[in-house]
């Protein structure tokens, strides 16, 4: 199986976010970046499928030079090679333009399966996988919790809301978005990290793909959300704050 995994690099979970001048993106200086967590589950699933059925895993990421680090991490975990679609201003792209760019890069090869995470922890559009399927003319399924491949058909467990699941069958080639928690993500081994140094990362400039970046939608500004409730912050030492809280819950909110 030839599998492509689309991986996004996003600000680290604990990174303090500051809104950049212009107001539509964050200041990238002085924060760390990491692999989008939902995508790490998609990568793990791709590696497991390859280990079971043979083939290769190609890690694909779009963004500025820094995203190469995330591709390297995927290579260290076991992906065979990487594709870096380079664009310093990729954050300006709307979901459709992003997917069109990735689709154009993926179309250069014949992948049996394209995997993405459920959504990204930065924009959180949650559309890339579904859009890739439409643009590549492939069937798809989303929020997948297990994959069993028999010949050219996959039996999938799809998560629905409120504790419900559904089995479904999807023929290959296809696109799947993977639910977080589907597997236990592996760590890169030292051997893997060494091996990754020799692996290829093909660079494609996004511009060269001929996809119009003139988007259909625009993030006008991002801002700290306005509070919908008035929160009373209880200060003091842990002991003092705890005492104040119990007092409030008993006598003000009257919920205990």
């Amino acid at each position, binding site marked *: 199986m030839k599998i492509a995994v689309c991986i996004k690099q996003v600000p680290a979970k604990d990174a303090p976010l500051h809104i950049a001048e212009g107001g539509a993106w964050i200041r990238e200086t002085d924060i760390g970046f990491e692999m989008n967590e939902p995508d790490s589950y998609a990568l793990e699933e791709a590696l497991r499928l390859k280990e079971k059925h043979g083939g290769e895993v190609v890690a694909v990421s779009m963004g500025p030079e820094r995203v190469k680090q995330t591709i390297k991490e995927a290579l260290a975990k076991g992906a065979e090679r990487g594709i870096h679609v380079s664009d310093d201003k990729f954050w300006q792209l709307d979901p*459709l333009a992003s997917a069109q760019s990735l689709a154009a890069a993926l179309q250069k090869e014949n992948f049996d399966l394209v995997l993405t995470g459920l959504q990204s922890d930065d924009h959180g559009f949650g559309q890339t996988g579904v859009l890739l399927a439409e643009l590549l003319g492939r069937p798809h399924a989303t929020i997948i919790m297990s994959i069993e491949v028999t010949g050219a058909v996959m039996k999938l467990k799809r998560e629905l809301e409120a504790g419900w699941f559904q089995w479904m069958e999807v023929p290959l080639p296809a696109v799947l978005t993977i639910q977080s928690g589907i597997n236990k993500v592996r760590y890169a081994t030292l051997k893997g990290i060494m091996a990754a140094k020799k692996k290829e990362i093909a660079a494609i400039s996004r511009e060269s793909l001929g996809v119009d970046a003139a988007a259909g939608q625009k993030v006008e500004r991002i801002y700290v959300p306005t509070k919908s409730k008035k929160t009373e912050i209880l200060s003091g030492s842990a002991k003092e704050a705890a005492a104040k809280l119990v007092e409030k819950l008993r006598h003000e909110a009257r919920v205990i």
Partner: protein
Amino acid sequence: MKILTITEQRDGKWNKVSFETLAAAQQLVAQTGGTLSLAVIGRGVAALAEEAAAKKCNEVLLIEHELLEKYTADGYTLALKQVITSSSPDLVLFPHTYQVRDFAPKLAASLSKGMIGDCTGYRYENGKLTFVRQMFQGKTAADVTFTAAAPWFASFQAGSFRSDLAENGAARAPVNKAAVDLKAEQIRVKPLELFREAKQAVDLTQAPIIVAVGRGIKEQKNLPLVETLAKAIGGEIAASRPICDEGWLPMERQIGSSGQTVAPKLYLALGISGAIQHVVGMKGSRCIVAVNKDSNAPIFEIADYGIVGDIFELIPALTAELGKGH
């Protein structure tokens, strides 16, 4: 503005979030002028269309086909694409459900259009429509506008509008059948049975007090701290998704979009940052307490009481305080 709202049903039962989106659509039509069509899609759903016709709208579009009996992204996309092409709405609104996530971006793209998904609200100012959604896991909000020609596609997150504000019409709306042409071979995926995993041993929706824990707990071996607190306060223990993904607590104790939706009288959120997926499952709680070391954590936006601090100090302190009695 000509608005088409797509409702959602499964096996003849409404997904109630549909009526929240209807409330948003009615409000938007009132502000912008124009018309509202309400689409009911499936097979054997004429009774639902009749029910929908009581709502304040200009028409109900009944989209029925034998190949729409079970939801598939292919079937829904092909059917709705035909309906949208023939009725040319300016704006197509959806409830942001798992099903909508599965097909709506594809539907929009099949018409070479984009979608603004998972919106928490909108603003209509000086003739300009701006959608509001969250980014960075709720740490920031974003104003997003369409820059291309209609039709526009957008979905509203559960809980963004109140379904009880969806108005009934003065008179019943006409139910118009929208014919769609589908062929079995166009549907490439095969939906099979629906099921629930292990029976739900705990029904968190009935718990008056919930003590919920998130990533801040760091390791499974720290969970007994939370259990002791839950016992002291007389609450059920619950968690955000990552804790259940790790297997530290069973999935049935997960609160959020993929888990249970609860509204207890007291919800203690310990070391939970407040990502949208969690918040939609608990924001209806009567009293919300958040304890988090990050004062910018989005959970504080919905909390009644907040403590910025280390949960490993706060949890034992709270347990001790509760133990003191009145």
